[in-house]
């Protein structure tokens, strides 16, 4: 059989296929079998793979060797809202990889669609905030918090993904204006995330919380994530938030809304007493 070895004779589809295969990571020597690409970002590519040893699907992130510290960073962060790392290693081509839990669910940018109650949106923000607060307590920061990096699982669980390394500079709209990112930059991004998930028109108190978190001056933001979550909690409990000096009429309406049942009961008591007092057959 004669084989045509002239590359010029290869069809475009074959060339495309070869290009694609050449870009795929070589997983020989690992326990993983490549199944397909999930997504790619500036720092690496995430693939779906099968763990042959444990017979389960995992997400496999392949990054440049220089960014191998990312896995070590995330591995330190054991939290229910942070995707757990199963294993880290090096590929034959020198690139680093790490296997993590394959999260199935909906990205926040799709999850926060119309019709989702504000309370549910705030629940997700609270979970993200808790993960951030935990990471900050361990000396880590996210650097690139945005809706695309938050996943809501099928059981309502929330995962914050793509924890950043030094090279990550954030995403416009969610990135704090300061050049050197720190914990306050994550608070800025959390404020932007809150603003993103709020429906229109958003409750004024929640918009104020988002605005305060997104202050251009880092010193004007919340001191830490817990402080911001406490303000969100005050809103949920029907209390005044620290980020907003509410107008008197709003304060009255909030008091009525929070204590409506008690006020109705007191009104009923007064009506009963007055009714008995003026009842002619007493």
């Amino acid at each position: 059989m004669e084989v045509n070895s002239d590359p010029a004779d290869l069809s475009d589809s074959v060339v495309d296929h070869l290009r694609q295969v050449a870009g795929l990571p070589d997983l020989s020597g690992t326990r993983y079998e490549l199944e397909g690409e999930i997504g790619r970002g500036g720092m690496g590519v995430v693939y779906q793979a099968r763990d042959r040893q444990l017979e389960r699907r995992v997400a496999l992130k392949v990054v440049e060797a220089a960014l191998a510290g990312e896995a070590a960073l995330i591995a330190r962060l054991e939290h229910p809202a942070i995707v757990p790392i199963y294993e880290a290693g090096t590929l034959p081509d020198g690139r680093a990889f790490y296997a993590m839990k394959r999260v199935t669910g909906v990205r926040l940018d799709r999850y926060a669609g119309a019709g989702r109650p504000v309370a549910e949106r705030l629940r997700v923000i609270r979970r993200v905030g808790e993960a951030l607060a935990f990471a900050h307590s361990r000396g880590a920061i996210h650097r690139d918090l945005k809706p695309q990096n938050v996943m809501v699982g099928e059981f309502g669980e929330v995962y914050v993904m793509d924890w950043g390394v030094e090279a990550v500079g954030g995403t416009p709209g969610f990135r704090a204006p300061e050049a050197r990112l720190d914990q306050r930059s994550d608070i800025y991004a959390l404020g932007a995330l809150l603003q993103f998930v709020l429906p229109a028109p958003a409750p004024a108190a929640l918009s104020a919380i988002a605005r305060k978190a997104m202050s251009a001056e880092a010193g004007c933001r919340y001191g830490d994530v817990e402080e911001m979550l406490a303000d969100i909690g005050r809103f949920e409990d029907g209390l005044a938030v620290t980020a907003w000096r509410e107008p008197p009429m709003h304060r009255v309406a909030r008091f009525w809304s929070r204590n409506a049942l008690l006020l109705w009961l007191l009104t009923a008591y007064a009506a009963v007493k007055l009714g008995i007092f003026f009842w002619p057959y007493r």
Partner: protein
Amino acid sequence: MNKIVVGLVAGVVLGALDGATAWFYPETRPLIGGIVAGSTFKGMLVGLASGWFARKVDSIKWGVVAGAALGLLLAFGVAVMDAASGQQHYLEIMLPGFVTGAIIGFSTQRMGTRKAA
């Protein structure tokens, strides 16, 4: 403050205030001391029971229902004792007792800490 103490305080205060309103009725004014004492004791019992209920059930709706039912039940007992002395004040005693019980039930749900599980 735990919920039983909240119930106790709310019951005593609201019971005393409820009893004190008897002062506005000329026919009960001479008996105000006994009425306030009895109403305070009744409020205390409702408060204790509502506080205990609030430790078991975390629901404003059911707290109000339980408090109102307890208030109504105890007020009915007071009204029966009152009737035994020859007077019929079922409505005047039971209606305020019902609403006061509801307020005490609400208070025990809204305030105080539940015992850690």
